């Protein structure tokens, strides 16, 4: 009932915005529809605290999905990001626990660099095997997904890796819980990552090459683009984004477990697609992706806040909402 009505609502609202880029606006209209649904289900939904909680929680997937936007718009796919997040988190925590450098602050700064280094290397591994080995990204990243996960389990002895130093924990914690000018730090980090990514994708020659490679690899090659280099680079960017997500993730619970990052790859890919990026490549929408990640988290939030859905059926309702959001988008695209 409410689903069909929100559908027509967005269509009606859409007609007034006819001169805007329709596909780019679609995810934001779907988001607005979710806001209406959430407000109807529970008045607490629209409270600033709740929305900031949800926005903050969506930061890991949003940041990872920004990286996935590059990979996917260049015609690739990375299934290893969830396991990679666990691995990067594990290595970063082991480094922080090693107390190799004096001073908590220095240790944390180097720890962040270590994380980004590990993420970039893991991404480079994916990219190199895919481009040099000429293997389908699906298979390569399925393989590295298993490899990164097992290595993490091995590093953690099957348990969890927790930050040992309580003083360092206290120093690091605000990265997730702290605020700056009223907004949580992770939200600022999403914004900065989004601005940088949008600049790279829309304003640099590398960004244009990414889109060209994703649209038509052969044409790109004959136009003198180093196709392999561009594609490999998208995986490195993906790795760096995973590392940034980990830097936001670790301070929340101060630990990595063997289930850290489980199924994040699917959530990231879903966010990218909901956001309007085509899975076949050639189109990339950074802000749509971030909106998509936010929508995924909101759907979960609305489910817990509602009293009408049995806890056994939440998955089904979530699936339905995601499909409807996509249908709204496709309808808008066809009209174009």
């Amino acid at each position, binding site marked *: 009932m409410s689903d069909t009505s929100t559908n027509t609502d967005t269509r009606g609202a859409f007609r007034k915005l006819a001169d805007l880029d329709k596909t780019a606006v679609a995810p934001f209209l779907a988001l607005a529809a979710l806001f209406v649904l959430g407000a109807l289900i*529970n008045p*607490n*939904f629209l*409270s600033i*605290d*709740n929305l900031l*909680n949800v926005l903050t*929680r969506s930061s890991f997937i949003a940041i990872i999905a920004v990286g996935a936007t590059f990979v996917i718009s260049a015609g690739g796919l990375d299934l290893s990001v969830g396991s990679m997040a666990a691995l990067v988190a594990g290595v970063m925590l082991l480094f922080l626990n090693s107390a190799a450098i004096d001073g908590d602050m220095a240790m944390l700064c180097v720890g962040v660099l270590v994380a980004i280094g590990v993420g970039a290397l893991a991404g480079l591994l994916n990219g190199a095997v895919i481009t040099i080995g000429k293997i389908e990204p699906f298979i390569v990243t399925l393989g590295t997904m298993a490899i990164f996960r097992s290595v993490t*389990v091995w590093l*953690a*002895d*099957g*348990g*969890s890796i*927790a930050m040992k130093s309580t003083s360092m924990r206290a120093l690091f914690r605000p990265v997730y*819980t702290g605020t700056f000018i009223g907004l949580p730090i992770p939200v600022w980090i999403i914004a900065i990552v989004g601005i940088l990514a949008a600049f790279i994708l829309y304003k640099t020659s590398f960004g244009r090459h990414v889109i060209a490679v994703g649209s038509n690899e052969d044409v790109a090659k004959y136009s003198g683009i180093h196709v392999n280099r561009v594609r490999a680079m998208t995986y490195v960017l993906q790795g760096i984004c995973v590392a940034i997500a980990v830097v936001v993730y670790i301070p*929340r*619970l101060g*630990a990595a*477990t*063997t*289930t*850290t990052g*489980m199924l994040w790859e699917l959530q990231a890919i879903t966010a990218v697609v909901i956001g309007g990026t085509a899975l076949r490549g050639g189109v990339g929408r950074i802000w749509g992706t971030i909106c998509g990640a936010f929508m995924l988290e909101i759907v*979960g*939030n609305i489910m*817990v*806040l509602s*009293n009408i859905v049995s*806890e*056994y059926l*939440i998955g089904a309702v979530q699936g339905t909402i995601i499909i409807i959001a996509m249908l709204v988008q496709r309808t808008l695209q066809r009209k174009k």
Partner: protein
Amino acid sequence: MRKLMIGLVGAALASTMTFAYAQDKKVNIAVSIPAADHGWTGGVVYHAERAAKLLEKAHPGLKITVKTSPDGASQANALEDLTTQGMDALVTLPHNSDELTDPLRQVKEKGIFVTVVDRALSDPTVQDLYVAGNNPELGRVAGTYLKDTLKTGDVVVIRGLPIVIDEERQKGFDEAIAGSGIKVLDKQFGNWSRDDAFKVMQDYLTKFPKIDAVWCQDDDMAVGVLEAISQAKRTDIKIVIGGAGMKDMIKRVADGDTMTPINVLYPPSMIATAMELTVANFYDQVPVRGSYILDATLVTKDNAAEFYFPDSPF
């Protein structure tokens, strides 16, 4: 069946055994368990390896092989390999009861002593000995504690995954609080994951202005719950009850943390209990066949030290 008991079935032991040679007797025992895919199974692997060392030291002729498998199919293969290598007894925590009943039946048909841990087989005649924790009791102990401590209050529940173990725990809890002043405001699945439990708890805090206690049946989830509460700076929640006996949570109980006054055991070390009993069957001439159901022991400040393994990964 739901009580602590040892079924004294089939006391007849191998006639080859004599007291004179008992200590030097050669016995091969294989242990087949899931790989460490989450905290609890990580604990199972740790305790299996720990018990193997202790038992081999105590019995010079004893050889214990511990083998982990990532899923049901590879565990079935591992069972075949272990049977080929030759063993006198098998201690196993099967990935999935339905999938592994037949492979285990084949092991049993070779005359091997079979001990099953935690997940009962669909055909109980295959197992000589069954060692498990008590899931309904885990829920009941938590529910009873809340009923006795709070008398009246609003409780939120975070469940694990929709499988039998979770249903049994939930049922035990519901029965314990039935008719009391304890009211369950909401139940949601947290998938036995810290991150998911954190999210669910954050949403509970948004949804309900006053919560007296949280029951989340698992210590990994309790970690996420406690973090969400401390971040929201809410002071209305008096008690958070986890379960299973993770070392960090046992330590909190031992240290007298007011928010986590108790824990309910569902210990991964039950694999060690099973191994001890199986070895006793061969060396000590004591009857062990039957079912051994461990209590869901209530851990309080007073007895916490007994259940604290600082070196365990769980």
